[in-house]
């Protein structure tokens, strides 16, 4: 119906912003990171190409322990976010009336209203030994003396779950929304009880949403910086903190770049495994939500 050339030109014009964005802001910077991470400082202002930075990582248990810790805590956060968020998403999508739905959804966006920093700030005010919760419990007489809730891994997990749960709920709500109620009714009608329907029908149906939520949640918590630092205790090192230290405190950009690539690689592998295990693809999960 139209000229082939115009079509081509349109395509090229549309492709240009995309290509510029992906190439200049994603691909090239990451190639730069890879190149940087392969440099080793041998003397002031003298660098050589080598794998030294990566070997450094392998030889130092602190680093890979921290990476594993970051990974496993992020997985825990993801799992908790799913457990806590799924019933909420289900409630919003299937049980709340159509009018309540919009309101509840709005409420879910609350954490997005202020920055990470203020959220952590709020948690600190709540959790510290002389904070609101401790004082409240003292007042009710449940505890005899102030209790410190801050500065431990549990606080970090609470803070992270809080930060990321929104990104779990949104894709879940949108997949569950698309699920025909009669599908659930059919599940009961054919003899399934509540548990069977949940396990065999609702969860398999919501799988793309679940996986999408898990991926985003996992990446966000593995990549978060402020929450673990501000809420974490004496032992709670986070891998992003180490990257920051490499870059800022130790002026070791090469090492920091290597760590950055390692974090990316590690999280990518975890996600790849997750996708393989759940039989989903990136395109039909994250891309759909």
């Amino acid at each position, binding site marked *: 119906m139209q000229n082939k050339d115009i079509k081509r030109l349109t395509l090229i014009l549309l492709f240009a912003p995309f290509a510029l964005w992906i190439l200049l802001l994603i691909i090239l910077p990451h190639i730069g990171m890879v190149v940087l991470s392969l440099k080793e400082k041998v003397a002031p202002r003298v660098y050589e190409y080598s794998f030294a930075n990566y070997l450094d990582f392998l030889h130092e248990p602190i680093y890979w322990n921290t990476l594993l810790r970051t990974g496993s805590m992020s997985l825990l956060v993801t799992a908790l976010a799913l457990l806590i968020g799924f019933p909420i998403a289900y409630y919003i999508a299937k049980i709340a009336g159509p009018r309540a739905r919009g309101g509840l959804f709005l409420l879910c966006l609350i954490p997005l209203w202020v920055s990470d920093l203020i959220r952590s700030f709020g948690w600190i005010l709540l959790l510290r030994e002389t904070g609101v919760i401790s004082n409240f419990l003292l007042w009710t007489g449940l505890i005899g003396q102030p209790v410190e809730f801050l*500065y431990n891994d549990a606080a970090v997990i609470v803070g992270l779950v809080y930060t990321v749960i929104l990104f779990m709920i949104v894709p879940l709500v949108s997949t569950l929304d698309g699920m025909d109620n009669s599908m659930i009714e059919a599940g009961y009608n054919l003899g399934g009880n509540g548990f069977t329907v949940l396990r065999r029908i609702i969860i398999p149906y919501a799988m793309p949403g679940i996986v999408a939520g898990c991926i985003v949640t996992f990446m966000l918590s593995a990549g978060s910086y402020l929450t673990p630092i501000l809420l974490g205790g004496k032992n709670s090192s986070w891998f992003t903190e180490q990257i920051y230290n490499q870059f800022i405190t130790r002026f070791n950009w090469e090492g920091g770049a290597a760590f950055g690539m390692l974090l990316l690689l590690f999280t990518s592998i975890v996600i790849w495994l997750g996708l393989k295990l759940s039989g989903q693809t990136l395109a039909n999960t994250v891309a759909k939500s």
Partner: protein
Amino acid sequence: ETLRLLTWGSYAPDELVQKFEEEYPDIEVEVTFSNNEEMIAKLRATGGAGFDLAQPSHDRIYAAQLEYDIYKPMDLSKIDTGVMEGKLLDGVKANTTIDGEVYAVPHQWGTSGLMADKTKAPDLKSWADLCDPAYKGKTSMRLKRTILLGTAYSMGEDPFAAYSDLEKYQGILDKVADKLIECKGNIKAYWQGGDDLSAMMLSGEIVGSETWDSTAYKLFDQNPNIVFVPPKEGALAWIDTFALPAKGKADDAAYKWINFVLRPENVTLMSASTGAIAAVKGGKDLLPEDKKAAVNAAFTDADIDNLKFFANIPPGVEDMEGKTLEKIKAATGG
């Protein structure tokens, strides 16, 4: 013309900036808050561009300049060096001269030491006392190089002397690390910034901590029981300087700012904000009254003589220290 200042949190109080802008109506001051590490990292990233005046500590200039070439030499003739405390000026010059060029002049100096609630921890006197089981769960420190150095002194070592022999320094660091890991159980939490520290101290969650003196003075205002304690090994003293980033574009404005803040009437304003002592002659007397009281409550003359000025950090030390700190953080103690 814009003067882009890269400086510490309280080193550019609004009042002073406004006064400066009134005096030089064609100059606009833009301030970026930072700290030693970030200043260097930023200037490194920009190759010394993006800012017109930076204020790193005197010990963090030499190596950074050698390695990344981020500052330009200063023209001392444009600075009113006469008002400066000679001892401090000479010390900074000595530390920051490369190939005969001077790269920094002093601005303010202060110390890092201990802070204690007199009523609850009267005996907190030494860096090592933070690890005293008597205060179990009631002390804090910042996991940065200060505590490494302090602990080294408390163990009878002289870390600055060992800077020339990095192997030896590594040995000291290892010992310090062991000690601090052991100490972990005693610590309530590592503070990250002035905020956590003040909150923990004021609320009584902790009774003693490693601290910047200015933070201690501020708390003294709120609660006179909280005082700065120079450790008996000697408080660690730093001098914050003025340095010109290599690709700064408003050198004249920068010089104007330097001379401006060194004027006695401005020094008091500045010190009121920073809590540090200006590196001008009679700097201590120019402190505002409340600060002066806090300083006098904290320091005797002997303490001042006992100050340990941070020594120039040779290349590589930051990396060693960083690794040690990571080791301590990652160790599972307490």
